[in-house]
C-alpha cells in the first residue's frame, strides 16, 4: 500500500492508504478526526466539507493521493490559539444545531466564505451554503449566525414573541 504525507491542521501525518481512499475516510478512520462527517459519499450534501488551501472541498470525493502538499483544515483545527472561531461562537450563541450532524460541514463552508468575503450579504451566504444539506432545517439560523459572526447583525431567530394565555 502506498504511503502519503498529508498536512492536516498544521501537522504532517504519514499514512498508508489505497490511492483512491477519499480524504474523508483517511481523516475519520486513519487519523481519528471524526469531526468531518459522512453523509452521501457523492459530493451532494456537504457534510464532509473541509478546507484545502482555504477553499471548501468535499472530502468524500477527493482521493487522498490528490491532496499532495495542500494544507487540509478540518473542524477540529478551526479554533485558533485564541479560542473558538467567531463562527463556532455564533453557532453556540444562536443555538443553530438541531441534530448537529451537518453542522461541522456547514461551519467549514461558512468559514471559507468569510475568509474570502468578510461582509457577505444574505444572497452571498445562500450561494456559498447551497451545497450543504441540513435535513433538520436549520438554514435560517445558519444564515443568521454567519451574519452575526461577520458582525453584520445580531441574532435573528428570537422572533417568537411568546403570547401567554391562561
Amino acid at each position, binding site marked *: 500500500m502506498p504511503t502519503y504525507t498529508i498536512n492536516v491542521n498544521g501537522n504532517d501525518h504519514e499514512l498508508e492508504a489505497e490511492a483512491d481512499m477519499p480524504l474523508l475516510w483517511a481523516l475519520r478512520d486513519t487519523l481519528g478526526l471524526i469531526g468531518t462527517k459522512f*453523509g452521501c459519499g457523492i459530493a451532494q450534501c456537504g457534510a464532509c466539507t473541509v478546507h484545502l488551501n482555504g477553499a471548501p472541498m468535499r472530502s468524500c470525493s477527493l482521493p487522498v493521493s490528490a491532496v499532495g502538499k495542500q494544507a487540509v483544515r478540518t473542524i*477540529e483545527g*478551526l479554533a485558533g490559539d485564541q479560542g473558538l472561531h467567531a463562527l463556532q461562537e455564533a453557532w*453556540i450563541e444562536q443555538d443553530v444545531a438541531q441534530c*448537529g450532524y451537518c*453542522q*461541522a460541514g456547514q461551519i467549514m463552508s461558512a468559514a471559507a466564505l468569510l475568509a474570502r468575503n468578510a461582509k457577505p450579504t444574505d444572497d452571498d451566504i445562500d450561494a456559498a*451554503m*447551497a451545497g450543504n444539506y441540513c435535513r433538520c432545517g436549520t438554514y435560517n439560523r445558519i444564515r443568521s449566525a454567519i451574519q452575526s459572526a461577520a458582525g453584520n447583525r445580531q441574532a435573528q431567530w428570537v422572533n417568537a414573541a411568546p403570547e401567554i394565555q391562561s
Partner: protein
Amino acid sequence: MSDLFESVRRAIAKQQNGQANGGIDRRSFVKLAGIGGSGLLLAAMAPKVLSATDGSPAEDTLLVSAELNAFVKIATDGKITIYSSNAEMGQGIKTALPMVIAEELGAKWEDVVVVQSPIDEARFGRHGAGGSTTVNRTFDQMRTMGASAREMFIGAGALVMEVPREELTAANSRVTHVSGQFRTFAQLATLAAQQEVPDPDALVFKERQDYTIIGSAVSGVDNLAITSGLALFGIDTRVPDMLYAAYHKCPAIGGRVVSANIDEIKRLPGVVDAFVVKGNGDVRELLDGIAIVGTNTHAVFSAKRKLKVKWDESQASKDSWSAMAARAQSLKGRRGSEEGLVKGDVDSVFADKNNTTLEAFYEYPFVAHLCMEPMNCTGHYRKAGSKANPGTKDELELWIPTQAPTRAYGPAKSLFGLEPEQIKVHQMRLGGSFGRRVYNEYVCEVTEISKRMEAPVKLTWTREDDIHHDFFRVGGFQSVKGSVDNKGKLVAFENHHMGMQTNGKPVVGSGFRPVEFPLQNIDNALVTHTMFDIATPCGPWRAPQSNTNAFVVQSFLDELAHASKRDYAKFLLEILGEPRWFEPGNIRSLNTGRAADVINLAVEKSGWGRAMPKGSGLGLAFFFSHAAHVAEVAHVSVDKNKKLRVHKVTVAVDVGPIINMSGATSQVEGAVIDGLSTMMAQKITMEKGRIQQSNFHDYTVLRMPAAPKVDIHFIQSDHAPTGLGEPALPPLAPAIGNAIFAATGHRVRKMPLSEEGYS
C-alpha cells in the same frame, strides 16, 4: 469559555490518539432492593454521599461529593451534574429536561453540566424518545427530581444556619435565608445527601410565574462539542482494535442469498473477511446479507460495490408503486369495502341539490427518513472464556444511535441468547431520526458480525443502504367527498382511504381514524378503507398519519370553502364550533377552543385576508396532532414557469408552556423547512420490490436558498406541556398547497410538487 475550550482541545487530542470513544463508562450504580411500581421512583430518589475515590469516573473531572438522586449530583466545586436519560436526536430533550430539573432545584443554569445517563431503567425510568411524548411523559418526573433535591438542600441549610426551613428558599445554586445569609449548594452538598428523601407526593412544585429557567432560551448542551468536531454521534465511535464493516442486503426487500463472489471480495485491499449471513427473515431484526469486514470504511464500501450476489427473490417484496397508483385510480370515486366510521347519512346530504358537493382524489408517495447520519452501530461481542472476556457468560457491548436503546434486548435474546445483564448499551447522539431509529436492525447486524470476527466492529451503512432499507413513510390515496349547505356550512364529509397493510395489519402511518378532523365536528360522515398488501417496510416518520392526512383534509376543506365562496379561516372556525374539549383531561383529544385560538393568532399575525398581488397568495391550514394545536399561514408566489417561492410561513402553536424557547422555535422552524423539503421533490418508488432512488442526487433535500422565513408565535396555555418534534409539520403541506391555489388557481392534490411541474 476558556476552560471549556481547553478541555475541548484535550478531548480532540485524545480522540485523535484513539484513546477516547463515545461511550460513557460510569460506575455501576448500586441497585436498591424491592424495585417496582412506585419503588422505581424511590430508587431514583435514593441519595448518596460519594467520595472522590469510590470509583467515580475520572473523566467527570468533577470532585463528586453528593448524589441527591439518580438525576442530580453536586460536586464540591459547585458543578451540578444532571443526567439526561433520553435519546437526543435534535429534538432538544437533552437540554430541555435538565432545564426542568434545574428549575425546581433552584440551580443556576451556568453551574449545570448535562451528562447522558447510562441505560438503567430501574434508576432512570424509561429510556428512549419518540412520538413527541417525552416531555409530557417525564415533566413531572423531572420536576420531582429537582424539587426533592431542593428540599434536601433546604433541610441541610436549616441545620447549618440554625433557622426554620420555612424561612429558606433555593435559587441560584444557593439556599438563602430571609435575613440574607446563605449557603451555596456546594457547601451544603454532603449534608444535603444525608437528609431524608422527601415524600414525592408531598412535594410542591414552583408556580409558573416564578420560573427563571423554564421558558427561557437556552443553547443546546452539546453545542460546543458539535461545533468543535468532538465525538458524539454513533458513527463517531472508535474503540481499540476496531474493525469496519459494511452489510449488503438484497435490493428486493427480503431476498435471500444463494451465492456470492466471496473469495474475490476477500482478496480486495483492506478487506479482512467477507461472509454470508443467514438472517431470520424479520426485517426489524436480521435479513440475509453479505458482511464485508475491513481495516477502514473505504475498503469495505469499495468491496461492497464489487459484490456479485445471486439472490433468491421468491420470498422477497414484489411491490410496485405504479401498480398501486393504477389500482387506486380504478377505485377513485368508489367506496372501500371496510367501514371505518358511519355517522348520520352522507348520501342524503350529497343528494340534496341545495348543497354544494365536491369530490377529489389525493395522492401522496412513500418517503424516506434520510437522517443525515446514515444508520450505523458499533458492537463488541465478547465470547465467554476469550481474552476479552475471561468470564463464563458471553458479553455484548453496543454503541447505538437509537431512539429506543432497550429494544436491543429482544433480538439479542432471540437471535443470540443473551440476557439484558450480559449487554451493555451506550446511548449515542443521533444524527437525525424522525422515527427511523426506533428500529434497531443494524444492531443485530453488527452483533452477528462482531461475534463472527471476535472483535469490535463498526458497521456503517452507505447512503444507498440507508435509502433502500428504510422503514418508509407510507404512501397512499384518498378519495374524498364533501358537502356545504346553502349557508356555507360543512354538512357532510366522506373519505375512501386507500392505505397499506402487511400480513393483514395496517402499516405504521396508514390510517384515517374516527377522531380525524373534521369527523367529530359534523353529523354526517363516512370513512371507508381499502388496504393494499405490501411487503415494503414502513415505520413512523415525523407525525405518522398526520403528515399525510393533514394534507388531504386541510386541502380539501379549502376546496370546499372556495367552492362555496367562504373565507377559509371563517369556514374552519365554524366547523370547530363552540369551544369544547372532546375528552376533557385527555391532551390527545381535540380542544376546539385551543384550535380556534391558534387559527385566530395565525390569521392575525400573517395578515390573512389582505389583497395579494397577482401570482402570490396566502394559504391557511390547521392541524391537531401529538397533543398540539397548530395553525400555519404560508405566503407564496409562483411564476409562469411554476417556479415556487415560499416567502414566509407564519406559525401559531399551543403546546402548553414552552420549556426551552430556543429549542421550541428550532423545532417549528425545522418542521416547516422539513415539510417543504419533503413536499417539493421527495418520492420513493419501488418496482419489483426494489426501491428506485438511491442517494441525494435522485432524492433531494431543500437547500438554503429555498428556505422560507418562519414567523413563530406560541400560545403558552396552562395545559400540560408536550413535545414539539412533530406537530408543526402536518399543517405545512396543505398551507402551501392552499397558498398555491390562491396564487394560481391550481389545486395541488398530489405530492410531491415536482411531479406537478413546480420547482
